[in-house]
């Protein structure tokens, strides 16, 4: 632990430690020269021999740095500094890439959050795919097909095997007394509705207004027996049913047809209104949303494609300039893996801020969408930027980082230094960078 701490500390004192090592190596060099002079060598030869004995000062320093510090962390630090410097030299390039990436990531995350919240997150009903709506078979435009005879709710005795349960609900208003904030601790509390006592037995999950798109504050059991007998034959309700496991919709439809025929015989007065047609409920509800979302997803694919093309183009333009630098670095002994790590660090420095920016953008888009709350997108309250969305944005950022960094890295690190340097000295207008850096190589 102490050793690790020392190493970490030494990273932040690199300048001072390097200076100290320089001084130390200088003194070793002088001692070597002194010893050579004592052996009777000429001053010039003494220095030459000493230089041979010591070997490359740079590689001693490099080994020293690696031993005293944490090499990968030190490299990371140096890569980061270098990358930040190079990005600041080209603010336009950096800005354009950053914004392009952020828009790409933001838009995709936004659409992903919609997909996830609306289509992918399971519905809060067990076996939601088995829930159907029972529509009335009516030809006449004067009747609503959404309401069917309430007699089906009562006729439990003849209910087909394929139908597990039939249900309905009605809207109404109450005067409420007592506190009823929707929270878990409310369970067991008593409240008064129209002066009748009720006990809260559960709290519905937030944002799930699936049955008809309205939001309800309270759900009460419906007491059919409370209905006046005269209303029984004419009463209509929206009917929902759950198909029993192992039965298909067609089987259920066939059985329901029989049920309806029997109902017609029992209650001749109700006639044609007793025919029923089964339709999967959520398929119907989500068909439109799915279409919208697929259109959005295609747009996302397009945006991402454009993002990649844009950024790739920018990088390509920059790459020709980078070629020289890479060639020089590899000529100075930077290994291929070292160069690849450098490129990845560079692109990570773009991808991470772009990912954060993108998350912000997708949050704004989601807020706008909520305010606008378009028709045809149910469950919008259920759409959130949760862990999954964060993961999505992070993965997009990382993948784009890999694509951005690895491409140029593999291309450039393969280049033969000599060829690249020769080429660039022909094409480049200012060779000052190389000659400036080159000056210490002679020392």
């Amino acid at each position, binding site marked *: 632990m*102490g050793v690790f701490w020392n190493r970490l500390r030494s990273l932040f004192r690199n300048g001072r430690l390097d200076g100290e090592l320089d001084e130390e190596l200088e003194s*070793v060099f002088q001692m070597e020269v002194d010893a050579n002079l004592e052996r009777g060598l000429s001053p010039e030869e003494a220095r030459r021999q000493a230089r041979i004995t010591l070997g490359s000062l740079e590689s001693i320093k490099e080994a020293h740095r690696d031993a005293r510090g944490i090499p990968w962390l030190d490299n990371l630090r140096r890569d980061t500094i270098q990358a930040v410097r190079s990005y600041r030299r080209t603010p336009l390039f950096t800005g354009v890439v950053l914004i392009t990436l952020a828009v790409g990531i933001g838009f995709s995350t936004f659409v992903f959050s919609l997909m996830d919240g609306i289509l992918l997150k399971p519905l809060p009903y067990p076996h939601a795919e088995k829930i159907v709506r029972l529509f009335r078979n009516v030809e006449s435009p004067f009747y609503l097909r959404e309401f069917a005879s309430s007699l089906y709710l009562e006729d439990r005795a003849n209910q087909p095997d394929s139908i597990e349960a039939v249900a309905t609900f009605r809207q109404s208003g109450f005067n409420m007394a007592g506190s009823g904030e929707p929270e878990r601790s409310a369970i067991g509390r008593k409240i008064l509705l129209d002066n009748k006592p009720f006990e809260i037995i559960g709290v519905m999950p937030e944002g799930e207004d699936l049955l008809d798109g309205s939001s309800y504050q309270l759900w009460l059991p419906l007491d059919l027996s409370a209905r006046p007998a005269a209303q029984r034959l004419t009463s209509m309700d929206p009917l929902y049913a759950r198909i029993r496991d192992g039965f298909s919709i067609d089987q259920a439809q066939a059985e329901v047809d029989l049920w309806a025929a029997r109902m017609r015989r029992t209650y001749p007065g109700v006639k044609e209104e007793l025919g029923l047609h089964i339709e999967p409920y959520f398929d119907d509800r989500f068909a439109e949303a799915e279409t919208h979302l697929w259109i959005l997803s295609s747009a996302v694919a397009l945006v991402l494609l454009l993002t990649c093309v844009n950024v790739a183009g920018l990088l390509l333009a920059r790459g020709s300039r980078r070629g020289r630098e890479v060639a020089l670095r590899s000529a100075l002994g930077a290994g291929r893996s070292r160069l690849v790590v450098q490129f990845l660090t560079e692109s990570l420095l773009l991808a991470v801020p772009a990912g954060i920016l993108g998350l912000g953008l997708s949050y704004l888009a989601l807020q706008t969408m909520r305010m606008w709350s378009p028709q045809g997108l149910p469950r919008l309250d259920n759409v959130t930027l949760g862990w999954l969305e964060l993961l999505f944005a992070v993965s997009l950022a990382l993948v784009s980082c890999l694509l951005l960094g690895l491409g140029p890295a593999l291309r450039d690190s393969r280049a033969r230094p000599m060829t690249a340097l020769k080429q660039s000295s022909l094409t480049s207008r200012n060779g000052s960078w190389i000659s400036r850096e080159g000056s210490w190589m002679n020392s």
Partner: protein
Amino acid sequence: MAEDRMNLLQGTLDLLVLQTLYAMGPMHGWGIARRLEQVADERIRINYGTMYPALVRLEQRGWIRAEWGASENNRRAKFYALTKVGRERLESEKRDWHAMAAIVDKVLE
């Protein structure tokens, strides 16, 4: 002379440096290298690219400590000295080395 020089066995340099400092007292880097080559009848060659990292490692572990001082020729030099921990460590490293050498010998015989 150069032909029969041997490469230092991996990991032995630390032990040799500790022993040198124990036997000779505080020394600078150049002195340690010369001393080791001398004791080995010039049959090993100390590479500074290996020795300086070793010195830094030993210093970070607290087995040696470094101080600037003046050399015999009145040159400013960094002197390395064995610490108390280093001396204890040298004992156990020596034991380990002898044990290991004995095993290798036994296998080779």
